[in-house]
Structure formats: structure tokens, C-alpha cells
């Protein structure tokens, strides 16, 4: 028996208790005889050399490595086929010894909450915060360069930087947003400004125009109609819509007027609608609906002005002063800034309080007030001067960054309730705290368990939590990659934007339902319901769903259940022309088991995926490939998962044949368990709920904290898995577990300021 002294990073010295068994008897012989033949300094199979693991002290000193070894052994992945396995009782003794060492160490360990780096608002957070702060509809995704991501998420403080390009944007949009919020700049003279050449003719009776409007103002959408139909034709219904929402529906006569008839002139018609538009990109559409007579006109005649009437072009005129005052301006401008300093102070104090998401000091208000005065002195109106003051707030780092005060170096301490309010709101809303949350923070009540729980429930029920559904699931399940998806139009003629957006909506709504209805997270694997519109239901071969509206649909067959058989996931895990069992297998390993496969070794022997379905079946190809021992150990785990989804093509449509071969969606895992088809594979995933729970917990913790999950978070993750399991895997119990966890509620002080290393490569002159 030996005692292991372990020096932890925190500086505390722990003693591992005496445990039954011994390293020299139970562990070392197996490593030496069974494992080290491949895992040594020379062969380095899987990049692992076991030499440093031959000592008892390594179990705790090299814990991360040992955790990985234990996981492989438990899963039955090692030793691989062809290497004699030690008897089961010997393996059990090894695992038991190591696990006991782990558990003993953990019992005495103090949780290190880690630290979160100053976090610049990402594009989504910026837009949402501007919306909640000023009521301005600003779309940062169209204005700012893309945010870099880390650990699979784009809200990681360490990775989010401020480049000069972004800073220039911050400055210019701050002025514009402030102007939109205050409305202090006179509108330019109205006029027609859109570009006719941007008008797209989608069909003979539908045209569309995408344009940016520069001001929050009223605009006239002007639709020109051209041509006429025969004397017997009935009038048609024209619908003018903006961003998918109809604004004007009007009956249009289709016959030529006598004057035009006699003069031989082309029949022209005009329809207009005036409406308020926020400064953004908008899609304008003019369309004849329920136009049964169009069918009777031959295709060639549909653009002939003597045979048909059709929307010819859309023009935009504006900006006109809004007919009603902007509701936001009423909220922001509680008094008239022209009335004097007291009012300006009042407006700015309230604004900064919310913008910096903490109690406001006089010093905070002084700077922007100074800018206000300077602008006024320069001859700007009070309203315009206020705009400059607001712009000042919007480029301040205290607005752009989520900042937390550091506790003393090397110590951990709870963050303040005010800081907690921001952590919570950016986790669940991707936005700033609202008044209620901020007030609870400022009165130091938020950290109280009952208060915190009630707030989480309230926030999840709020529509703003859709941001969590979209941003977290969009990245965990990678459905955001739909943006980048392109599909071969020949192979997948039904692929289009509407289908893509329907798929995205389905997964977002499904996630939101699991979250708001507090369903078990096992629903992600096999929940027997989903959200469909007619288009997507048809794609899935599900009957009885009519119209564009999404609604809840109960799933009755084995073909679909859970997110891994949703079109979005099946599409982002495929290639543009075909499926790939490797991509899908890798997808599931990463996102269901959080166990990304090691990358393929260089000089991989040939796998000809392109020939699949043509010359040989996919399965034959993969099996040839796997015969090579170099590839076998990873593919043995990856491919079966991928094969289980082979019944879905590259856009998630159900199929039973791939090319000329019948789909075989059966497989066998390295631990010997086998399945046939997606339903059985999902059953096996469900048998391993702790593993899946751990995966979701790690991903969600990463997102909630905005930092990677580190080895010192092991205990937190274990706790999350235990709590969630105890609560029947309920989604909200996981969310609450995270919110109450040490990394979320506390912070470690940084030991020493790291002095930025001078870039030694630069030698000016």
C-alpha cells in the first residue's frame, strides 16, 4: 500500500486514502502485458505512450490521461480485436482500483470555478441588447464581420476580439443607432430610391425586391402592373407583402380599358401601400394569389402584355416622417432634452444604468454629458447632441464587454448579484438583464436559491429565451451550418431556401419545446413529436399537415423521432451530393457522446466514397477500409453510428435504396452490441443516458460560461449529470444545475497579470 502525495494546482495538499487493491498488482501488469505493445514511445498508437502511466502516482497526477484510458476500457473499445483480452475480473479490478482513487481524491477536492475572460458581446448579443436597450431593430449579422468561435460556440470570451474593422463599425453604427433612437436628424427629401434591376421575377405573377432602407420612417411601396387579359377573364387578387407579411390585398381588373384599346397603348396599372419600415434590409413582394386563369395562358404568353397582366416592377419611395411617434422615443425621451441639463442627466443616467448593466455612478454620466455639451456648443440641436452622448455610451467598453471584477489573486469568490444578473440574461436571453433581473441583482437577492430558481423559470417562459434555443441548439446541433449548405440541384431538385428554413425552424421549435415544457433531454434522441409545416411534412412523407404555419405533430412511425432524424441535422452532416457515414458518425460522436474521434492518420489507405452506389455498395467500401488496422479502431466506433442513418439521404429524405443498392442500416459497436436501423440505434443511445447527459451538460456549460470546459470542471459536470439523472433528465433541471454550479456563480482571481510579450519579430528601422 502506498500513500500518494498530490500537489494540486490550487496549492492544497491532499492525501489519497488507503484503498483496496494495489497499482502494482491490479494495474501495472495489464498495462505492461496487454497495452504497452502498441502504446509505447516508438509505436505511439493513438498518440499514446503509456510509459508515464506505469507509476501509481500517475493515476492522480495524470488524471486526464487516466480518465481517457478508463473511458476506452469501460466502452470495451480497448484492447482492440486481435489483441488478447485479460480476463473480465482482472479488468474489473483495474477499473475499480483506478475509480476508487478518483473518487477518494474528488471527495476531498474543492471545486475550482475557473475564470471567464472579459467577454465582448457577439453579433447576436449586440443586436438583442440594442433591441432591449433602445428598441432599435439593428441586425449586427449584416453589419459586423463574423465572430470567431471556440469549443464549437461563438460566445467564447477568449476568442472574441475587437479588430479595427469591427471598431470602425462600432463607431459608425453607434451614431446611426443613436439617431434612430432619438430621431434628432431631419429626414432627407423623399424620392424614389430603389433599383429596378434588383427586382426578381419569381414566376409570371410574382415579383420580389430586396432593398435596404436607410431610415426608420414611412415608405411607399409602389407596384407597377403591366398588360391585360382576355375579355372574359375574371379580376385577380394582388397581395403586396413586406418580409413575408401581407400589407395590402386588392382586387385588380384584368381587362384593357377602352382608351388604351383605341389608342393601342399598353395597359398599365399601379397599386401602392404606405407603411413604417425600420432601417434594415427588407424583402418586398407583389403577387397574384389564387390566380386560376394563369394556368390557361401558355407559358410563352405570360409576359406578353396583350395576353396577360402581371406585376412588372416594384419601386420604393421615401423616407416620409412616420405617421405615429416611435414608441421607443417615448420611453427613452422621458423629458425634452432641450429643457436643460437636468433632463439630459435624467435620460443619460437611466440609459447608462441599463447599458452598463450595473448601478450607475456620477463618473459614468460625466463623460457622455461632456460630449453632449461639446456637441451643443458646436451648434448641434439638443436632440442631436443627445445622439452623440448615446453614441459615446455605445462604444464604451463597459457596454461592449461583459466585465466582472476579479477576486484576489488565486482565490475564488462568488460573483456579485449584479454580475450574476448579466450571466443569467446572456445565457438564457443572449441579451441584457431586464429591470426585474437587474433590480434583484442590485438588491443582492438574486443569488438566493429560491429567487434564482424563480427567475430562471420566468426567463425560460419569456419569448426572449428563444435566443437560447436558436443559439445553443444552432451550434450544438450545428443547424447554423445550414447557412453554408449547398446542394446539387440535379440530385436534389426539391432543395430550396424554404425547405432549408423549414428545417431550421423545426429544430429550433423542438428545442424550445423541450426547454419550455421541461421535457427530458432523452427527447432529443427519440421524442415522438415535432413541429412541421406542409412543406416539411411532405418532405418527410407525413400526411395531413396543410399550410405554411408550423404546428406540433405527433410522430407515429419509426422513421422519425428526436433531432437526429430531423432534416436539419441529416443535411448538415452530409456532403453536397451524397451522404457520408463518416461525417454522420463523426457528427454523432461529437454531439451525442462529446467524444470526437481522433483524426485520420496521414497516408490513409484509399476509401473511394465517390464510387459508392455506383460500383460498390457503401458498406463494401467501408468494410474494405476498416480491414486496415490503422483505421479500424476509430471507424469501428464511428461508422456504425453513421450507417444507422443511411435511411436518410443528403437532405434527410427517407429512402430504402441508395443508387442501385438496398440500404443496410445495421451495425455493430466495438462492445459487441448490434442494431438494425435508426430506431434501434436510438434505443442504444438511450440505454446510455449518463453518457448523453454528460455530453449535453458539457456543451451547455461551455455555452453558459462562454469558456471551454476544463479538466477542473470534472466535478461540476459529474454533479450536473447526477442531478439531471435524479430529475428524470428534465431539461430545466440541467439548466438550473448549471445556474447553481460553482463555475457559474463564482470566479477565480487571476494569479498574475500576464505581461503581453513584445512581438520580438518586429524590429522597426
Amino acid at each position, binding site marked *: 500500500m502506498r500513500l500518494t502525495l498530490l500537489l494540486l494546482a490550487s496549492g492544497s495538499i491532499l492525501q489519497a486514502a488507503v484503498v483496496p487493491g494495489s497499482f502494482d498488482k491490479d494495474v501495472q501488469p495489464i498495462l505492461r502485458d496487454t497495452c504497452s505493445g502498441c502504446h509505447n514511445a516508438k509505436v505511439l498508437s493513438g498518440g499514446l505512450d503509456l510509459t508515464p502511466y506505469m507509476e501509481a502516482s500517475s493515476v492522480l497526477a495524470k488524471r486526464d490521461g487516466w480518465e481517457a484510458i478508463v473511458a476506452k476500457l469501460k466502452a470495451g473499445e480497448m484492447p482492440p480485436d486481435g489483441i488478447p483480452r485479460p480476463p473480465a475480473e482482472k479488468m474489473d479490478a483495474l477499473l475499480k482500483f483506478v475509480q476508487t482513487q478518483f473518487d477518494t481524491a474528488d471527495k476531498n477536492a474543492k471545486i475550482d470555478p475557473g475564470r471567464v475572460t472579459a467577454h465582448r458581446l457577439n453579433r447576436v448579443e449586440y443586436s438583442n441588447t440594442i433591441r432591449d436597450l433602445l428598441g432599435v431593430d439593428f441586425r449586427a449579422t449584416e453589419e459586423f464581420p463574423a465572430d470567431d468561435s471556440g469549443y464549437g460556440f461563438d460566445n467564447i470570451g477568449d476568442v472574441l476580439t475587437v479588430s*479595427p474593422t469591427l471598431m470602425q463599425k462600432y463607431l459608425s453604427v453607434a451614431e446611426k443607432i443613436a439617431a434612430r433612437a432619438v430621431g434628432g436628424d431631419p429626414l432627407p427629401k423623399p424620392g424614389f430610391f430603389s433599383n429596378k434591376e434588383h427586382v426578381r421575377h419569381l414566376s409570371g405573377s410574382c415579383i420580389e425586391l430586396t432593398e435596404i432602407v436607410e431610415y426608420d420612417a414611412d415608405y411607399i411601396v409602389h407596384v407597377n402592373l403591366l398588360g391585360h387579359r382576355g375579355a372574359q377573364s375574371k379580376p385577380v387578387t394582388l397581395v403586396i407583402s413586406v418580409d413575408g407579411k401581407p400589407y395590402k390585398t386588392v382586387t385588380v381588373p384584368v381587362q384593357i380599358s377602352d382608351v388604351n384599346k383605341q389608342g393601342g397603348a399598353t395597359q398599365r396599372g399601379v397599386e401602392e401601400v404606405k407603411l413604417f419600415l425600420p432601417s434594415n434590409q427588407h424583402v418586398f413582394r407583389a403577387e397574384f394569389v389564387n390566380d386560376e386563369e394563369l394556368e390557361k395562358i401558355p407559358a410563352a404568353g405570360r409576359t406578353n402584355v396583350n395576353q396577360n397582366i402581371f406585376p412588372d416592377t416594384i419601386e420604393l419611395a421615401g423616407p416620409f416622417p412616420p405617421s405615429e411617434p416611435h414608441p421607443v422615443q417615448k420611453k427613452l425621451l422621458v423629458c425634452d432634452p432641450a429643457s436643460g441639463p437636468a433632463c439630459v442627466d435624467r435620460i443619460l443616467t437611466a440609459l447608462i444604468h441599463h447599458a452598463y448593466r450595473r448601478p450607475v455612478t456620477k463618473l459614468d454620466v460625466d463623460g457622455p454629458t461632456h460630449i453632449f455639451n461639446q456637441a451643443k456648443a458646436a451648434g448641434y440641436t439638443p436632440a442631436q447632441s443627445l445622439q452623440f452622448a448615446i453614441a459615446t455610451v455605445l462604444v*464604451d467598453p463597459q457596454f461592449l464587454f461583459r466585465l466582472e471584477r476579479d477576486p484576489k489573486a488565486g482565490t475564488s469568490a462568488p460573483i456579485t448579484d449584479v454580475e450574476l444578473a448579466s450571466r443569467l440574461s446572456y445565457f438564457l436571453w443572449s441579451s441584457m438583464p431586464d429591470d426585474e433581473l437587474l433590480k434583484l441583482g442590485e438588491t443582492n437577492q438574486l443569488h438566493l436559491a429560491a429567487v434564482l430558481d424563480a427567475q430562471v423559470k420566468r426567463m425560460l417562459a419569456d419569448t426572449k429565451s428563444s435566443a437560447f434555443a436558436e443559439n445553443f441548439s444552432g451550434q450544438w446541433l450545428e443547424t447554423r451550418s445550414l447557412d453554408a449548405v449547398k446542394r446539387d440541384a*440535379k440530385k436534389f431538385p426539391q432543395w430550396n431556401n424554404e425547405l432549408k428554413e423549414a428545417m431550421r425552424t423545426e429544430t429550433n421549435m423542438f428545442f424550445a419545446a423541450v426547454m419550455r415544457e421541461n421535457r427530458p433531454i432523452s427527447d432529443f434522441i427519440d421524442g415522438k413529436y415535432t413541429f412541421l409545416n406542409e412543406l416539411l411534412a411532405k418532405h418527410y412523407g407525413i400526411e395531413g399537415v396543410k399550410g405554411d404555419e408550423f404546428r406540433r405533430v405527433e410522430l407515429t412511425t419509426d422513421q422519425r423521432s428526436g433531432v437526429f432524424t430531423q432534416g436539419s441535422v441529416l443535411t448538415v452532416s452530409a456532403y453536397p451530393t451524397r451522404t457520408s457515414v463518416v461525417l454522420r458518425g463523426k457528427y454523432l460522436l461529437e454531439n451525442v457522446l462529446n467524444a470526437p474521434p481522433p483524426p485520420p492518420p*496521414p497516408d490513409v489507405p484509399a476509401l473511394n466514397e465517390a464510387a459508392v452506389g455506383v460500383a460498390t455498395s457503401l458498406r463494401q467500401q467501408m468494410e474494405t477500409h476498416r480491414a486496415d488496422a490503422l483505421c479500424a479502431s476509430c471507424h469501428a466506433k464511428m461508422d456504425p453510428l453513421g450507417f444507422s442513418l443511411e435511411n436518410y439521404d443528403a437532405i434527410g429524405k427517407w429512402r430504402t435504396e441508395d443508387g442501385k443498392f438496398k440500404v443496410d442500416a445495421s451495425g455493430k459497436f466495438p462492445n459487441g452490441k448490434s442494431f438494425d436501423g435508426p430506431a434501434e440505434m436510438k434505443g442504444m443511445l438511450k440505454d446510455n443516458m449518463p453518457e448523453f447527459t454528460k455530453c449535453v451538460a458539457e456543451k451547455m456549460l461551455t455555452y453558459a460560461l462562454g469558456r471551454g470546459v476544463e479538466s477542473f470542471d470534472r466535478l461540476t459536470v459529474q454533479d450536473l449529470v447526477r442531478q439531471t439523472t435524479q430529475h428524470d433528465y428534465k431539461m430545466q433541471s440541467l439548466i438550473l444545475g448549471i445556474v447553481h454550479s460553482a463555475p457559474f456563480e463564482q470566479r477565480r482571481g*487571476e494569479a498574475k497579470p500576464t505581461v503581453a510579450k513584445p512581438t520580438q519579430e518586429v524590429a522597426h528601422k
Partner: protein
Amino acid sequence: MIVTRKALNRRTLLKGIGVALGLPFLDAMTPAFAASTPAEQPVRLAWFYLPNGIDMRNWTPAEEGPLGALPDILSPLNGLKDDITVISNLTANWGRPLLVGAGDHGRALAAYMTGVEVYRTAGADLKLTTSADQLAAAAIGHLTKLPSLEIGLEEARQAGNCDNGYSCAYCYNVSWKTPTQPLPPISDPRNLFERLFGDDIVEAPAAHAKRLAMRQSILDHALDSTHRLEATLGGTDRRKMDEYLTSVREIEQGVERAEKSGMVIDPGIEKPFGVPHEFPDYFRLMTDMMVVAFKADITRISTIMVGREGSTRPYPEIGIADGHHPLTHHMGNMQMLEKVHQINILHAKLFAEFLTKLKNTKEGDSNLLDQSLIVYGSGLSDGNVHAHDQLPTVLAGRGGKYISPGRHIIYQRETPVANLFASMIERVGVRPEHVGDSTGTLAGLSLS
């Protein structure tokens, strides 16, 4: 200078940059900047980064020395043979797996212009070094409105993890301002336009000067606020604030320069709008703006990522429905390799068009191409096996009577590609001890 509507015939422009793209953007913009020719004739530097390597069978000229008929992929450059130098055998050693294993795409890009180890992290502790273009920008960037310009031709980003434990930041950014700060490229045409020309409304010069003065004060406030804040923050947070401060200062200098130049853009100019559907149009639109930026001396340094490393873009414009990256892992399948070949040709064609535009843009007794040094290359040669040596490299331009082009130069195997970059930035007066793993500059680029 005020860029007026008169110079930019609105009709022409609408045609040029709208959906129709009948006339190139460049033709529309050029008259506006005719008067802006800088007094001196500066040297411009640019890097075109090609993702996923090249079909090398059809890239490398057979003979060293004067360029004969070019191999298939480079054949679009035949008409520019006397303006380019094909350079063989350069290596980006730090792209290799060495002891860390896979992640070749992330490393290929991240190591290309930095020449150092790419620290494997999914995000917490990005670490590289300042890239070659940014070494130059740090030294000469203050001479122009923008110290440098970063452009990318891939709009949408992939969700999830990027490359085997390497943060996406390594796969999407070729330019690094500091060891920890990447410079994300601009991929939206309108944003690029506004970065170059600003997005101010037009005001009378006096009113505009007043606005710029306010802007200056706002930025001063941001600096003050940050300084006060820093005292309360931990080291890593302070580093974040330093990045912010550096950017604020750079914008402040830009505002100062704008005050002096008085350059304003007319609101009647229709800005480019949306990403063109077809890749060639996208490429042309973005590189046209690059030509204008060089011509008007808005910047002298630019990088452009033709795709992110590991790009899966299909090219339906030339009948290729499969993604680029999976095709490069052709495993000897000739059909797949042929498609890679075609993608490589398409890129080269578009690059040749760009060079031609530079060449047709006169500057004093010279032209923009002669005044430039432009790398067209990749951090991978054979994408199938992730080879990081014998890199495909073309150097276009003369760098202002510096290079003697029209040749194929074969260096010794394992010559760091950073040596080429060291030569380039030396040409603009930047002489660091080394650029990443450079061992010197490239001998023999100039015949004199």
C-alpha cells in the same frame, strides 16, 4: 476630395454592382479616383490564399528559368507571363503534424503567414505570432487611411468544432495582428465598400469637419474610460482591453486622416448589395474594390482568402456539385482530382483578371501591377495527403522595379515560405530579424 455622382455615372454603376453585373464595379469607380494618384509610387503587398491545396500535376512548370507555355492551371496567366514569377519548393514547416497529429487545415492556414507553431487550443489560449502582412502594416500602415485590408470570399461559417481541436479562429483568419488577435476578413461586399469609403451621409465640408471632431471626442472618451477600467481587471481581461484600445487608436488615426483628406462619398453612389450568387462575380466584385483601394492609396497591404481553409464550397458555376475539400481527398480517384483541377483553373482565371486590371491601371510611368508584390498560393500543396512542402506559389508584379519576373525559380527543398514573405516586406522597408521561421530572404528574385 469628394467622390461625386458626376464621376460615378449612376446608371453605369447600377449596372456594375447590382445583380446584373454587366459592367465591372471597377470601371465605374475608377474615374472617381483619377485625381487621387499619390505623389510617390508606393509598393503594394497582397496575399491570395487558396484553400485545400492544388492539383500539383498541372501547376508546376517543367523547366526552371524563363517561363514557357504554362501548365494547365496557370495557363490563364499566359498573357501575364512576363509579370509573374513561379516559385517552387517553399515549405510551411509549422503546418506539418510534427508531434501533434492531425488538424492540417487549421495549421496550414494559421502557420502560413506567421511561420510559427500553431498552439493547439479550441479557444482559451490562441497563440501564434504577428503575420507577415501585419508586420508590414505595423511599420507602414500609418501612411494610408487603412493600415491593411483583410478580405474573405466565404460568407457563411460552419458551426461546431473546426479542425481536430484547433479553434475556428485558425481556420478562418490568415492575418494576425498579434499572437492572440486574428483579423477576421470582411466577406460582405457592402461592408467592404463602407470600410474603404466610409458610410457617412454627405454634409457640407464644414459640417463634416464638425462631425469628425465629435467622433474624435467620442473615441477619446473611450480611451479614458478603458484606462480607468483597466486598473480593476485581471491580466487576461486587460489583454482584451488592450486589443480594444489598439483598435480605438487605429480608428482615431483614421479619423484624423479623414479630417485632413476630406474624402467623402456621395450618397447617390449605390453601394454593392449582397453577395453575388455566382462565385466568379463575387471574386470580381471584391477584388475590384481591392484594386480601387490600391489605386486610391487607401491601403498598401491586403490579404484575401479565396476560401477558408477546409472550404467545402461547391462550384456549380462550372458544373461541380461536390464540396471542394472532400474532392481534394480524392485518394487517387481521377474523376475527383479532375474536379479539383477545374476549380484550380477557375481561381487562376479570376486571379489573372485581377492582375490584368492592376496592369491596366496606370500610375505615373508605371502601373499598379508593376508597383505590387502579390502572392498567389496555399499552405498545402497536395491536399489529399496534406503536404505542407513544395507549396504552390506565384509571385505577381515587380514591386516597383525590384523583381525580374517571367521566370520559374526552384529553391532548395525545405526553404521556408516565410523567406519569401520576408523579402516582400523588406521591399516596403520592414526588416524584422525574422518572419516566423524565416532563415533570411529569398536570393535571386531580382536579377540585378
